[in-house]
Structures are given as C-alpha cells and as structure tokens.
C-alpha cells in the first residue's frame, strides 16, 4: 500500500470493492477501518479490516477474497466454516429458477382454476401457472406453532406475588399492602424448523415445499429451514428474501445436490453435529418433508431420528407418498424413522398443509 500516493483513497476503494462483493460496508465502517489501520503497523492492515469490516464467518470468506485481489495475499489462517455450506454451482435436479418462475407468472393474468381446486391438487400435478399462484395461497396459511412457557412474566389475575406492583399499590393505602398483585409466566410460540428433502425423487414437490418454507421464514424471524439430499444446507437466510421467486431460486441454488440421492441419516448427522444447530432444534417443532426413500443406512437414520426426537418438542414427518391411501411405510428408512415421529401426514397439497398448521396450533406445551 506504500506505492499509492494516497493511502486513504486506497482504503476507501477497498471498502467499495467489498461493497461490490455484497458486504454491508457503510461509510461509518470505512471510517472505523481507517482509524484502525492508522493505529496499526502496515503489515497488520489485514487485521484492521477483519475487525471492522467482516463481522461473521461468511463475511470473512468474502473479505479474504477481496483482500487477496486487492493487496496480494492474506496472512495464513484457516477460514472459519460458514454457517451453512453453499453449493458452488447449480446442478440438475430441481426444475426451478427465478427466470422460469417469472416467465410463468407473466402468463397468469387470469387463472381459471379456483382456489379450492388448487388446494386439493397434489403439488406434483400442478402446472407452472398454478405453481405461480402458490405463494399467495401459502402466505395465507396461518402458521401458529404450539406455545412454551417463557421466563418472562407479566401481570396476571393469579400466579406468583408481584412485589413491585403490590408495593406501588400499597402507597394508596398508606404503605399497607392491602391489595395483592400477581404475575405469571408468559407463553411464547415454539420455533418451527423445516427440513426439506430436495433429492430427485422429491423434485415434483420441491418447489411447492420451498414456497411453503418461504412463507414460514417470512412469518417469523426465528424460524429456520434446511434442505437436504446427500448433504445439508441451511437456507433460512436465502428464503427470507421478500420476493418468493427470488427466494426460492436462491435457496434452490444453494441446496441443489448434484448427486440427487437421499441420505437422510447422514444429513441429519450434519444437522446434529453443529452446536448452533442444536440450540435451534432444542424445544422446537421440527417438520421433515421427505419421501423417506433412504439410500444410506436405515439403522443410522433411526439413531439420528431418536436423537432429534429427544431434542425437539414435536416431530412431524410429511411424506407426499402418503397421498395414496394404499401407501404403507415399507421403505426401510421410513420404517426406521417412524417410531420417533409424532405426526405422520402427507403434505402433498395445500389442504393437508392447512390441516397440519391447524394441528400444530392445537398442540399446547
């Protein structure tokens, strides 16, 4: 950086380069960066930026890339593992891109099929136009998961004595606590965690499921969604995009599995292997959407499901194959998982998703 006539200009340019890479680098952050750089020897410029411009593992990865391009090299240190691993490129498997989705919605000035028909049609049989109408229908779905007791307390008719308010009251009676006040614990909705199978056998349902997940992510900032095939990807952030088409496309791009197979046991293993995921799962309502056609070891799947069931408050398995009344969970994977599932439903159309939403709301902690 000594080669530049104006070091400050170079720092600012670096900030702009980071911004182009998608990092949220405000002017304030650049000022902080410059202050930090001024406090450190030139060799530590990398660390000045790390501390001020790259708040998170994903950001550090991008920061390193830009820094290398800008200043040549990065001090030797392993990059931390990002929260959810991103797939490098998009492979075959899921028939959904933003372009396709938009294409479809353009053609739907008027849609003949009434809502009720759409509600009852299996996702696997929906046309592109009908799929394009899904977001607004799914958005109307009222997702209210069961409640749990929170540590917070608020005024109540009975419960434990609320000394603070009792005392306040007592001032009216000359310091005599004549009227007692009470407080009770509040209840909070449990977190909803969606685990979506995006392997090839689930392809007809993937788009609808991702749209469903999008509606859920938009409903509550604390909820999480993961996609899995042969490996696990956290797609919560991608799905929080306001535009459903863009959200679904981005999530699909992150999650697409080139292999196309299903290794549910291993994917669950990846989910259970990370501490931050564990706290997400603890006490949550977990909804798994998969046909249960496990290619891996069914026994492993059983063990992972047992652990998941111990962590979660309620485990729901949606299997679109169940749409067929003659279906029996004979696949070995499904059979191994079933003992740990609280609710086994089909989830193949909107009506069944609505029924599920109602059942979840009816559960009480």
């Amino acid at each position: 950086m000594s080669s530049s006539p104006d070091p400050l200009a170079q720092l600012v340019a670096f900030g702009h380069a980071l911004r182009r890479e998608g990092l949220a680098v405000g002017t304030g952050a650049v000022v902080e960066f410059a202050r930090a750089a001024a406090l450190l020897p030139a060799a530590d410029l990398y660390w000045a930026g790390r501390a001020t411009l790259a708040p998170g593992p994903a950001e550090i990865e991008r920061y390193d890339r830009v820094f290398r391009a800008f200043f040549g090299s990065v001090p030797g240190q392993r990059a931390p593992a990002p929260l959810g691993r991103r797939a490098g490129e998009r492979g075959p498997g899921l028939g959904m891109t933003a372009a396709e989705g938009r294409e479809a919605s353009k053609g739907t000035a008027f849609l003949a099929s009434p809502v009720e028909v759409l509600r009852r049609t299996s996702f696997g049989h929906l046309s592109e136009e009908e799929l394009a109408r899904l977001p607004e229908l799914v958005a109307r779905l009222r997702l209210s998961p069961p409640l749990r007791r929170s540590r917070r307390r608020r005024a109540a008719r009975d419960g434990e004595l609320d000394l603070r308010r009792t005392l306040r009251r007592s001032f009216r009676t000359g310091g005599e606590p004549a009227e007692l006040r009470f407080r009770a614990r509040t209840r909070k909705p449990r977190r909803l965690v969606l685990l979506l199978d995006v392997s090839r056998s689930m392809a007809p349902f993937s788009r609808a499921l991702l749209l469903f997940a999008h509606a859920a992510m938009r409903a509550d900032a604390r909820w999480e969604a993961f996609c899995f095939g042969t490996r696990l990807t956290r797609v919560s952030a991608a799905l929080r995009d306001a535009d459903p088409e863009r959200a679904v496309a981005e999530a699909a791009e992150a999650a697409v599995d080139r292999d196309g197979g299903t290794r549910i046991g291993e994917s669950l293993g990846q989910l259970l292997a990370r501490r931050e995921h564990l706290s997400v799962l603890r006490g949550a309502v977990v909804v798994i959407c998969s046909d249960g056609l496990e290619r891996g070891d069914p026994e492993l799947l059983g063990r992972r499901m047992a652990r998941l069931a111990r962590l979660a408050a309620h485990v729901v398995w949606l299997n679109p194959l169940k749409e067929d009344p003659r279906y029996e969970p004979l696949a070995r994977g499904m059979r191994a998982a079933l003992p740990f599932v609280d609710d086994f439903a089909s989830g193949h159309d909107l009506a069944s998703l609505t029924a599920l939403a109602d059942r979840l709301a009816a559960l009480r902690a």
Partner: protein
Amino acid sequence: MRAFSYDGRVGFGSADEVERAFAGESYLADRGLATALYLALAMRRPLLLEGEAGVGKTEVAKTLARLLDAELVRLQCYEGIDAAQALYEWDYAKQLLYARLLQEGELEPDRRLAELHGPEFLLERPLLHALRAGAGAVLLIDELDRADDEFEAFLLELLSDFAVTIPEIGTIAAAEPPAVIVTSNRTRELHDALKRRCLYHWIDFPDVEREAAIVRLRAPGVSERLARSVAEAVARLREWELAKRPGAAEAIDWAAALALLGVATLDEETARATLGWVVKNEDDLRVVHARLDELVA
C-alpha cells in the same frame, strides 16, 4: 503485571504488547485476536467474539481483566433476560419494610416517601455495576445470542452512550467506559446494528503447534512430546464428523489426565482408557472407538 496507560486509559501500546501480555497470563492469543483486542481498547469499542464452544472466548475477558487489574463483571445471557435481571431492580421487600416504619412513625418525618426510591433500595445488576465501575471494570456479556432481540436492542443503546436513566434517581453515566467483550456462539445471527457498534473477531481452533503450546502452558506436568501427540489427535478429531468437536479446554484436560497416569505419548490403549476426557457424547464415542487406530496414527 500491570499494563501501562495508553490514550488516557489503561491499555496497551501495540498488538504485540497485547500478545506478550496475554502469553504472560497463560493465554496464547494469535495475531488476529491480539490486534482486535488492541484496537478495541484503543478505539474504545466493544469487541464481539465468535467461535465454537471451547475456543476460549470467555477466557479472553477473564485474562484481560487480570491484565488491566480491573474487576470482571459478567453478564450471562439467557432467553427471556430483561433489564430487571441485567441492569437494576428495586429491593421491594426492603421498600415495604421501610414504608411500614414510616407509617408507624419510627422514622423522622423529614425522611419522606420519595426516599423509598433512594439509592439504598437499588439492587445493582451486572450492567449497572459495570457502568458505575467504569474503566475499573471489564464487562463480559456472555452468549448474547441466547438473549432475545429486544434485549439486544436495549443493550445496543447502553453500549452506545454508556449511560442509563433510572426515572426515580436520574442518569447514571460511566465517567470512563469499561472495556466490553461480547461473546456469541452463533445460535442466531446478531443484528447488524450491534455488529456495527462492535469490533469483530472470529476465534478459530488453534493449529497443532499453538495447541501443544497452550496445553503445556495450562497443564505444566505435561511433557512436550505428550502435548504434541494430544494436539495432533485433537486436531484429527476436529476433522471428523462429531456432534461436539473438542475445544482447547478438552485438549488440556485430556493431556493433564494422561500425564497423571504417567503416559509418555498417546497410543491406542491409553487413548481408549481416557477418551471420555475429550469426547463427551455417546454417539461420538462410538465413532471414535471404531477409528482409534487412525486417531493415534
């Protein structure tokens, strides 16, 4: 050891100095952490530390407090934590008693009801305590990701002006803000506003060299050879797909246990007997037992 004054406050003159001082307190900080700490003190900004459990996030604050000769004020966050538990609370029982005494005329009439909200009835919680202690304290806000969003917003306000207003008493401001370390395990993403407020550092697992050095520092009875073989095995364990990857704390415990047993270097047999020190999850134990030969290879 007491660090000298920098920029009007107790601190360090450079990142190297931080690194050396921490090493003197048996904490081996890498270049990045030392730089981040130095910047946080020099720029008077809170430092947000993230990283896996067991990489020594909390220990950073403890060590810093020792070095600055300051009091460590720790606020452990949990879901549902609110101002009453973090900032201050009135001592209601005492207030009630006082009110009764007033009524029974046991107290002089000029001490009036208003005094019910005097400082003597105020129960100090960690944040208020740190504000009052000012530069004499290192405030550790531990596992902020566990608290709710609302608490984070409240904290943001406090970290911006280091002052708090108690309606009955007035504003209490820190003459000199305390050094603040915030830690998070990333169970959820913290808000951008808070991240902007803080300097950031990600603490990674140490490499084998550093880990061996840490083990030697923390468990003095451990030979160099044993420390190295433990560090190598732990590094291997972290590569495997385990539910709980062992941190530096586990490596230290394991090495100390092995040294107590008189083990010179790790082999399959001694590893099997002491595995519980480093792998603490039943599923993981099964995995590791099946691959013991690779572990000590």
